């Protein structure tokens, strides 16, 4: 390695000591060649001085010969180009690359970004602590940016770096950066991605990679390398979770020793801790934490250890050892997210092998609830799943297993599906929650359920969630729709500001926190009413996507109909039925949506209607038509 710090030459012992304590950060880069992904990775390798002189010489020679930078170093050549891979006949795939700095070691999962490589991206993301999403500053947030972000959120990565690249080609414009960042945040909020850092850069020129850019003095955030070196690794979060050790192997070298070997998936363990073996439910106490380096007083998530228990408990591979008082759930029916990874389509009803943690069982997809358009997040009905498609499904296993929702513990909530004939890995997914049926049917089961209550009323319960600016016509439309529905014999209830603010929510004001709580309560009440079998109409500005998303998440799929009353602000301000816009303009009302507080327009509302160019009756007719088209007003 060329130019490394003098420490190596002067005091190798000190250097090694420093490096002994380096942490590891694994990340994935999402983007296409066009976004400069290869250049960025090549640049990171180059800047971290991970290149030997023979490699540098080869890079210089190649740059002159086949480079695209007019003889300047073409960093993209350091990582395989897609064309080369195609020529070699290698599956375009996940490549892992390594570099380290004085502070950290990094493993980069490099995957192609096109839609047909969704499988590869999900694979690369599954072991990543963080994602870098590349955006070409000239083009801003694109369809593929949304797709990458969705996949990143799907796999549970919490930290995202939006690398706004090629800033040199937009004149290093702060306004461009800010616009892209705003666009991105608006979208990311829908996905629940919150820990976002956006860095304006030029991977080609080296701006904001390791050194702050001289061209972008307006940017005061971290450089990319600076951020990667200091961001807290996700591993810490796993320590907060409940103790889980999926048993890999029972270690019985002789009659006197019986240990349970495995990697701690979550939490912390100490000798003396009470544990529960699952799914059997038997309990014992940890006697020893055995390693070749001696018994440990404490072990944490990520460590591979061998546990010895106080009691002779029957434990075999596939069992999960949990903390006694915070055990995993045990179930054989699940709702799960499934990514299909082979050419032959997935058909509900077929049996596959499912491996989660260290257990392999037989599983059947009993129902595809819906598939997801990875570009628009739209939910679509599906009878089968093709390669790279993602769906929400119901899974039925041949026996109960211990598990955690994927959001809580990746290792006990993630699974792969294996074809029983070819033995190929054909799918991967995340267990979301247990469906209480089958053997649990006699326990705590409510016999009269939502469907039954809806059927008695001859309707399918749902929420019609009206959102839009003040004066857009939400209440008026909701009111008219309720009248029509009522005339058809439907059982409805309209929740709006008046009947909620004067009762249930009279303790709430108009601060941001209170507004959030206001919507939360409305959503919860709507959920109860849907459960009671009603068609619920809500009419609130509900300006923030995050809250609408929260409300949607409370309902079952297909129950939440978002109706965007998309009346332009020029029209609503002109109407100003309550005189609020005038007051807001005079500064008498603060945080007024559309004036000094944002309205985040829905991107995927089920129905959008503009009231500015039609009469109320025309609007209501149109809405009723659209609702009938969606089948929401028909009884099953």
């Amino acid at each position, binding site marked *: 390695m060329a130019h490394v710090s003098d420490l190596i030459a002067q005091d190798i012992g000190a*250097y090694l000591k420093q490096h002994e304590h*380096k*942490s590891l950060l694994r990340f994935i880069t999402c983007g296409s060649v066009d976004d400069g992904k290869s250049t960025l990775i090549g640049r990171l390798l180059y800047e971290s001085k991970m290149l030997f002189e*023979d490699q540098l010489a080869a890079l210089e020679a190649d740059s002159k010969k086949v480079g695209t930078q007019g003889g300047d170093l073409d960093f993209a050549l350091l990582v395989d180009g897609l064309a080369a891979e195609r020529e070699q006949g290698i*599956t375009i795939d996940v490549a*892992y690359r*390594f570099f380290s700095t004085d502070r950290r070691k990094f493993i980069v999962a490099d995957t192609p970004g096109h839609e047909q490589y969704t499988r590869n991206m999900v694979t690369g993301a599954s072991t990543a602590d963080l994602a870098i999403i590349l955006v070409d500053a000239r083009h801003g947030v694109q369809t593929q940016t949304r797709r990458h972000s969705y996949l990143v959120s799907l796999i549970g990565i919490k930290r995202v770096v939006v690398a706004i690249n090629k800033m040199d080609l937009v004149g290093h414009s702060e306004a461009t950066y800010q616009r892209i960042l705003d666009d991105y945040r608006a979208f990311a909020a829908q996905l629940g991605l919150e820990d976002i850092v956006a860095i304006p850069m030029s991977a080609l020129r080296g701006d904001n990679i390791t050194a702050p850019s001289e061209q972008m003095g307006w940017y005061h955030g971290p450089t990319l390398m600076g951020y990667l070196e200091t961001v807290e690794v996700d591993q810490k979060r796993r320590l907060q979770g409940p103790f889980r050790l999926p048993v*890999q192997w029972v270690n019985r070298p002789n009659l006197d020793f019986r240990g349970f070997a495995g*990697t701690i998936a979550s939490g912390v363990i100490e000798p003396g801790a009470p544990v529960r073996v699952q799914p059997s439910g038997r309990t014992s106490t940890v006697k020893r934490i055995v390693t070749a380096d001696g018994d440990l007083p404490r072990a944490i998530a990520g460590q591979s250890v061998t546990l010895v228990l106080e009691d002779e408990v029957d434990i075999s591979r596939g069992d999960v050892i949990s903390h006694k008082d915070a055990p995993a759930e045990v179930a054989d029916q699940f709702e799960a997210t499934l990514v299909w990874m082979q050419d032959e389509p997935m058909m509900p009803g077929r049996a596959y092998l499912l491996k989660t943690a260290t257990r392999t069982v037989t599983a059947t997809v009993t129902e595809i609830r819906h598939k997801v358009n990875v570009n628009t997040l739209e939910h679509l009905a599906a009878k089968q799943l093709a390669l790279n498609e993602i769906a929400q499904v119901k899974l039925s296993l041949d026996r109960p297993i211990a598990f955690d929702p994927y959001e809580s513990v990746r290792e006990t909530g993630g699974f792969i599906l294996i074809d029983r004939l070819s033995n190929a890995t054909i799918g991967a997914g995340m267990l979301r929650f247990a469906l209480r049926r089958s053997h649990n049917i006699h326990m705590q089961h409510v016999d009269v359920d939502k469907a039954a209550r809806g059927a008695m009323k001859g309707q399918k319960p749902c929420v019609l969630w009206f959102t839009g600016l003040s004066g857009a016509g939400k209440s008026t439309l909701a009111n008219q729709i309720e009248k029509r529905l009522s005339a058809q014999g439907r059982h409805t209830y309209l929740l709006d500001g008046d009947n909620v603010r004067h009762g249930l929510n009279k303790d709430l004001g108009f601060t941001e926190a209170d507004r959030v709580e206001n919507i939360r309560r409305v959503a919860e009440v709507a959920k109860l009413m849907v459960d009671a079998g009603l068609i619920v109409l809500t009419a609130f500005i509900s300006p923030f996507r995050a809250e609408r998303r929260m409300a949607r998440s409370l309902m079952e799929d297909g129950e939440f109909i978002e109706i965007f009353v998309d009346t332009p602000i020029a029209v609503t301000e002109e109407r100003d039925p309550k005189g609020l816009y005038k007051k807001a303009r005079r500064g008498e009302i603060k945080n007024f949506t559309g004036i000094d507080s944002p309205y985040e327009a829905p991107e995927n509302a089920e129905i959008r209607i503009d009231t500015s160019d039609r009469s109320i009756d025309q609007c209501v007719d149109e809405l009723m038509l659209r609702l009938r088209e969606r089948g929401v007003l028909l009884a099953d």
Partner: protein
Amino acid sequence: MAHTAANTPDIDPDTLTHLQRLEAESIHIMREVVAEAENPVMLYSIGKDSAVMLHLAMKAFYPAVPPFPLLHVDTTWKFRAMYQFRDEMAKKLGMDLIVHINEDGVAKGINPFTHGSAIHTDIMKTEGLKQALDKYGFDVAFGGARRDEEKSRAKERIFSFRTAQHRWDPKNQRPELWNLYNARKHKGESIRVFPISNWTELDIWQYIYLQNIPIVPLYFSAPRPVVERDGTLIMVDDDRMPLRAGEVPQMRNVRFRTLGCYPLTGAVESNASSLTEIIQEMLLTKTSERQGRVIDHDSAGSMEKKKQEGYF
């Protein structure tokens, strides 16, 4: 050696170091194999990566001895110091050691001098390995390959699937998510498993240093008889090496960065005689690790080709 780092970061008991994470991952992989394979084996090449693999295996199954044998596919052209070290290690650790030599190759007199590195490696190593796997019916073989070694390995799976003919089909490898490995296969098919895929050369050396892992003395500098041939320093390890006209072995202070068949392994001039000096030299050196290996130079993309043919 005293470790007196001025700016040693505080040790955080809630964060595993990079080496702890790598170690745990490797142990996890080895245990998965032992739990799911019928008849696993660990390929043992006597080099530094093998030394780390062996050490990790001892840890993974402690207090039991690793429940699989070691297999050395012997080309008969290793350094003498390697054979000595191999036998000592197996004895010390109490593991079974299987040595397999391609007797057909020996009968044909295959050697690196007359047949060149490509044919020698193909027959004695690649063919020898297939013979051994078939002979003993091993279904999973641990290997010490790392993804940082070479471009074509950056995409290699940890569980690399081989057909019944031992061929690696790059189009037919399985996606690997989280730490869930699919070890299922049909009869006759096999899997090569690379537990140290995610380690780099520096990680290997640092781990050897921290864990005090024994390695073949050839890694350390000593006066050794060498000749310079085609720009490479070759050690004259025994009298089988035919000297060319004008070649006179000279004693020079040399060591080896990688170990293989002695006629195919270039030495580097060095005075590094301790682990720290080796690491120091590696960090300050200007050429990459595999440059010393003659087999990589035979033809462009040669590793890719060898892998498809069944070389590790």
